Structure formats: C-alpha cells, structure tokens
C-alpha cells in the first residue's frame, strides 16, 4: 500500500469531528500550510488540537481557531496570538498551557511508549496542581504522555516511505508529533525518490509516517523579520 497521496484533502479525508490533532511548527515556522487550509474547508468541529502556539498573528491554525473548530487546545505560548488569548480570557475555549519542555517530552513519550515521567519543571507553580509529586534529588511532578489521532507535519524533503529531512530550525515538534499520532500526514516541499536522502541524514525514519504528499503554494511567512542595521 502506498503512502503517497495527491493532496491534503485526500490525505485528511477521514479526519472527523471530536478527534485529536497534533500540528507541527514553532509559531509559523514549519507549519503544515496545505493541511491547515484543507481542514479550514472541511466540515469538522470539536477538535482537540495539540500545537505549541495554535497559530500566530492571525495565521496558521488561527484559520480554524476562528472558525470555532477547536474545542480544546494544548499549547505552551499564547503571546503573539491575540485571537487565542481573547477566546481564553472569555472562557470560550478550553486551554491547557503546558511548559514547552514538558510539552515536547509528553509528545515524545506518547510516541516512544513511555507511560509517564517525572520532571522538576513546574514544581511550586499552578502547573503542579493536582499532580503526583515525588522527591528525587529535588521535588518533581508526574507528567503523562500525549497522543493524537492525526498529526499534520511539514518537512522540506520526504521520500515515498516517509523518511523525512527538515530544513534549519523548522524541525521543532514535528518529528515527535509524527511519532505520537496514529496517522501522521506529512506535506513536503520536495517529494524525492527512495535513496535520495542519505540514510545518515534522515531526521525521521519513515516508519513513523503513514501518509505523504507533495505540497504546493508555500507562503513560509516570517513573523518578525529583523535584519542587520
């Protein structure tokens, strides 16, 4: 069975209301633009979305956020996303803020079969409330894995098996989310032949990828362009 799909809407045809969705990217860097656009055109709602920022500056996942398709969000940072902050303060969306290192490790754990881990991050803060505490060299809190029905991922290069190569700092949460989801849908700027990515340079082995397609029309928005003065 081939993993290659024609486009985002074909690769996401069985995403349905109430499902949990992971979305790669840091701010707008490395987001799955084609998949987000496709979901914005689908009749789905009550999604639980796990993504570091849930879009930013009116772009990315904000498209589906303002369509009220997201019932619950897991994220670490809201600064730069006024649409989400407004919904949060009004109580119109359920948001679990997760420290970014705990966020990435919970996703990694979800993909790696780890059933829980203890971390000092968040001890003595609101994050620790209601969680099991265990003292090692210092007090730590128990954190549980995150998994999803679907992940939407963007990579620079991918091959038909789903081996992926990410450009510069666009890797961020994406390989972890692919590992932690039942169906990882990957869009690539360059769909290459098997063997084109040297085995030593594969950032995510294709065993973690279920669907892949050649993406198109990338905007690759920059949030804050700062140049040498």
């Amino acid at each position, binding site marked *: 069975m081939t993993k290659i799909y024609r486009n985002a809407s074909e690769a996401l045809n069985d995403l349905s209301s109430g499902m949990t969705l992971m979305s790669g990217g*840091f*701010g*707008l*860097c*490395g987001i799955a633009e084609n998949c987000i656009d496709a979901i914005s055109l689908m009749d789905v709602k009550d999604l639980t979305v796990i993504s*570091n920022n849930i879009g*930013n500056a009116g772009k990315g996942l904000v498209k589906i956020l303002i369509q009220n398709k997201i019932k619950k969000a897991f*994220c*670490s*940072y*809201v*600064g*730069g996303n006024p649409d989400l*902050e407004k919904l*949060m*303060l009004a109580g119109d969306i359920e948001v679990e*803020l997760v*420290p*970014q*290192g*705990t*966020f*990435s*490790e919970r*996703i*990694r754990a979800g993909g790696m079969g780890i059933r829980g881990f203890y*971390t*000092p*991050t*968040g*001890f*003595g*803060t*609101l*994050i620790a409330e209601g969680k099991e505490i265990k003292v090692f060299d210092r007090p730590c809190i128990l954190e549980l894995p995150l998994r999803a029905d679907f992940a939407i991922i963007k990579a*620079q290069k991918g091959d038909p098996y789903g081996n992926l190569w*990410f*450009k*510069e*700092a*666009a*890797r*961020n*949460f*994406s*390989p*972890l989310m692919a590992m932690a989801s039942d169906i990882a849908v990957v869009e690539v700027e360059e769909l290459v032949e098997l063997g084109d990515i040297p085995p030593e340079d594969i*950032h995510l082995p294709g065993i973690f990828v279920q669907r892949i397609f050649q993406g198109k029309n990338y905007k*690759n*928005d*920059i*949030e*804050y*362009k*700062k*140049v*040498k*003065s």
Partner: protein
Amino acid sequence: MSWTKEQMADEVINLFKENCSVNLGIGLPSLVAERLPANLNIMVHSENGILGVGERPTENEVSPTLINAGKETVTIIKGASFFDSSLSFGMIRGGHIDYSVLGGMEVDVLGNLANWMIPGKKVTGMGGAMDLVNGSKNVIVMMNHFTKKGIPKLKDRCDLPLTGACVVDIVVTDMGIFSPDKNKFKIIKLADGARGLDLGPVE
C-alpha cells in the same frame, strides 16, 4: 542616571564566563544577543532547536526557517547545530545550559520568578521559561526595576502566579544587579541613579 537597556545587556554579558552556553529569552534579553562579543566564544541556544545562534541576517540571508524563540530572523555561527524540541529541552532540563536570561514581571527575596500571566488580564503562556529556570545552571532575570506605575518589581513575595520557585540567581535591572538572599535582595552593583530611591526589599 539609571542604566540604559544597552548598559543592562552589557552588565549581563559581564556575568558570562568564556566558552559557555546561554539561552536568551524574549524581550529585553534579546538585546544581549546583539551585543555579545565574538571573542567570548559563547554558544547561544534557542529552544526552538538551534545551538549557535549568530547575529541578524542581511536582507539576502533572511530565511523563514531560521528564526529564534522570539520568532525573529537570525543567522547561525560556524559550529552551530539544529535539533528537535525534545532534544533542545533535554539540553535545558539536563543541566547543559550554563546561563539562562529571562524577562520578569516580579522576583522575590526567595528567588521566585513570575513572568507568564496576570490572572484575568493577560496570558502569554510560559513557553520554555518554566523549563529554563529549573534546568539552567544559572538563572539571570533582566527587567526594568519598576512597573509603569512606579512599583518595584523586586518584592518580599511574588503576587502573580510563579514561573519557578526559588530559581533566580541574579537580577539585572536599570537600577543595578541584585541577588535574592532569604529575606532581602543583596546589592551586587548599584546604578548611580538608584541612590535614595525605594527599590523594594533591598539592602
């Protein structure tokens, strides 16, 4: 005179040892990156997955996939590396980052830091801050000494929700350099303009 932002950044840089690794937060701390002298051989870590952040790009060097944790365009230096978020926070949580410089809303005498939300008013989220304050070997807070209303941000106890408990080593403000010391802040260095002002629980 109180210190300018540039003077504050230079005071932070004076705290760094040569050949160290540092993580620089969003806001004031990002100024530190712009003023780091190359001869210190410092590796700047950005939690979105870069070790070895360089200066601002020229117009031709700008790349949408090369940004720092503040989502600003950057370059990399020779010897830099890219990695995923889990490995990035492993560097932090595992104690491999020597210095973390963060902004702050409040710091108290116990070394508690608050910088991620004002209940009912403002939520930025903690991003990587909770991991950074618990994992980095040295935690430096860089912030203005007073709120816009003129209230010292150095306090006996933080009123806002904490980012970390007993985590701050040094605070650099426009009034000087201070360190939390059980029931007060110890003065390490004072700006000229600070004399005679109510700086909070400082002695």
